[in-house]
């Protein structure tokens, strides 16, 4: 009887569950030609009873998270596979993933997927705007080849004859400038920066011009 009482008294004290993440922030980098960035979060159940991931929630439709459906025994490891849609995206993203468990003491925790989507070439700014009060003086778009990529060729084209452009190398193969000079008010133009990068092929990045 005494043993039974001690068991029921002590089990709630010592029984515990805990998820130890190998890392609660996972970073990955990719270029937009890859349609999805994939990453994996790994955890260990350092507690004394099994834990099951009951649900995962993400902050946008661009991120999907799939967890192991089986309970993870004490000392065991589990994974959550996350994929992030990179289509049309650009820059650094930090996507929170809310993980829910069947452990009443740790019902919810958040892990973060950080994705750097970087083009082989960076074009900045991608909008040139002239206000009505502003003279139509030349402005410059800077084109930079991202580290790790080798440029085979680059060109710039404009779809509006009222906007003159000139591309000149600042450092051949690494940096270029496109000088843009509008000749008319209320002009709209799209400048296509067409690059051919080794291993990636041809890609067009758009920059827009507006005058008012």
């Amino acid at each position, binding site marked *: 009887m005494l043993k039974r009482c001690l068991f029921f008294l002590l089990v709630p004290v010592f029984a515990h569950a805990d998820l130890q993440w190998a890392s609660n922030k996972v970073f990955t980098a990719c270029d937009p030609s890859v349609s999805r960035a994939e990453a994996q979060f790994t955890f260990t159940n350092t507690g004394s009873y099994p834990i099951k991931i009951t649900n995962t929630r993400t*902050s946008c439709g661009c991120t999907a998270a799939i967890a192991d459906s089986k309970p993870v025994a004490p000392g065991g490891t589990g994974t959550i596979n996350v994929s992030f849609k990179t289509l049309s995206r*650009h820059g650094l993203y930090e996507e929170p993933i809310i993980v829910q468990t069947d452990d009443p003491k740790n019902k919810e925790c958040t892990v973060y997927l950080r994705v750097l989507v970087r083009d082989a070439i960076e074009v900045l700014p991608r909008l040139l705007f002239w206000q009505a009060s502003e003279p139509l003086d030349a402005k410059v778009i800077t084109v930079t080849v991202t580290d790790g990529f080798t440029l085979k060729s680059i060109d710039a084209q404009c779809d509006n004859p009222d906007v003159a452009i000139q591309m000149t190398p600042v450092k051949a193969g690494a940096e270029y400038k496109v000088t843009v000079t509008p000749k008319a008010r209320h002009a709209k133009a799209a400048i296509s920066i067409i690059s051919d990068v080794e291993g990636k092929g041809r890609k067009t990045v758009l920059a827009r011009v507006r005058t008012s």
Partner: protein
Amino acid sequence: MRRALRQIIAILALPLLPAVATGLLHPRKPSWQSDEVTLAAATAWGSDLLWVDARPDADYAKGHIPGAIQLNEDRWDDLMDGVLDHFTTSRKIVVYCSSLSCQTSHDVARRLREEAQISNVFVLRGGWEAWTAERRPIETSPTGTQ
């Protein structure tokens, strides 16, 4: 008594020096300014405001803030012209997505600031849920149009 008071003030003020220095100089200092605005603050801007809807096409088609222009990252290049057709440098852009926990509006706002170098870009706190919670009017239209 005065001396003790001076000493207390000095003790309290001393930690302020490194705190201020950190706040000014630290490379990863937190931003003092939030890019979020409340619905009340945004609507007070009146005609100086351009709403940008960052939600997926289907959500925009079901209902959006009247006059909102669609710009989501799935069709960034297709939709960007629509935003620029309504943009002037005097207008403030307020981006919204579904809810408070939604990150998409922040991502769209960041890209407008970084890529288009538009400075007056804000995010609606609470997003579309904040708008509908107040039972404000909504507009439905085909995607990609106003």
